[in-house]
């Protein structure tokens, strides 16, 4: 016993933190699906990690390897309630748990959910100045947050990064609109001055400067690629957790 705790203490703070974060994520995923034997599953997985790392003085790579081979916490949570319906050896167990497990394989965890979330949030955000897209946008966000297919961090990613391409589109449209109105106003003020000075050529300086438009274009490209990358990540992770 003393030996065991001695070896445990040699682990670096980063390693301890990595393991703790993994187990927290697992615990949250099991809790979200209403898994009854959550404490037992978390404890036995903690033990698995401890047993593996106790075999030698672990490096950071060892910790990463153990956690990677255990796999995605959400997949474990899906397994924990997904196979409750399967027949066979655990039929006693299924009968045993009764109503507590009637939440089934997670909430809103069907294969249609990832595509629906990505489409609703991304497409609606392009046209947010109309009423209907606001409604479909909110439906997309509710689906995203209510589903058990994603971790809280992924849900934040979906909420803030997924609408970026849409936001970029209306920033571009708004920018064009602003630039053009300023052209008009400046030229008219010169005419009212009635000096007849041909300095009307300064008309469009009120719009975007060259540097501004380069930075703007960079931000827009970043927003669009970020949004698309977020869509790919959310879709693929979501689908990998569908039972």
């Amino acid at each position: 016993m003393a030996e065991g705790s001695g070896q445990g203490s040699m682990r670096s703070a980063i390693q301890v933190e990595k393991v703790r974060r993994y187990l927290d994520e697992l615990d949250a995923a099991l809790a979200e699906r209403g898994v009854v034997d959550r404490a037992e599953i978390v404890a036995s997985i903690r033990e698995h990690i401890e047993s593996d790392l106790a075999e030698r003085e672990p490096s950071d790579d060892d910790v990463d390897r153990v956690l990677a081979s255990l796999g995605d916490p959400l997949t474990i949570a899906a397994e924990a309630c997904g196979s409750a319906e399967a027949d066979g050896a655990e039929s006693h167990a299924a009968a045993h748990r009764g109503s507590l497990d009637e939440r089934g394989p997670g909430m809103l965890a069907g294969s249609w959910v990832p595509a629906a979330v990505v489409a609703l949030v991304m497409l609606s955000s392009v046209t947010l100045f109309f009423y209907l897209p606001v409604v479909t946008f909110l439906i997309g966000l509710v689906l995203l947050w209510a589903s058990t297919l994603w971790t809280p961090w992924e849900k934040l990613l979906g909420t803030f990064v997924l609408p970026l391409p849409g936001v970029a589109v209306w920033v571009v449209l708004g920018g064009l609109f602003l630039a053009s109105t300023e052209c008009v106003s400046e030229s008219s003020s010169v005419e009212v001055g009635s000096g007849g000075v041909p300095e009307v050529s300064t008309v469009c300086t009120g719009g975007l400067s060259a540097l501004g438009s380069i930075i703007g274009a960079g931000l827009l490209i970043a927003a669009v690629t970020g949004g698309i990358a977020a869509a790919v990540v959310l879709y693929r992770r979501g689908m990998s957790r569908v039972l």
Partner: protein
Amino acid sequence: MTNLRRGSLEYCILALLRDGERYGLDIARDLTDGVLLAGEGTLYPLLSRLRKGGLVTTTWRESSTGPPRRYYSLTADGRAALRVFESAWVPFRMAVDAAIGDQAGGSDG
């Protein structure tokens, strides 16, 4: 495919315990061929369910290399369930093989 894999996996776990008690990491290492077990972590919900179903039981043992471990072993019910599965599995496998074999051969009429 998921149900087929999952259904067989539970009996594979029981079969691994046939010759005596083992701890989780040890069982996981025998199943890491990537076919039966998606990730090692998914073993534990299954073990937990088998225990609640009365097919396996757990005991704590001190370990020379680390913290104490819970060891899993078959109960009488578990042994019986494994026997039933084994007796059904061979005819089942042969029937599936025969059906797939016919399909693949395809030449006979």
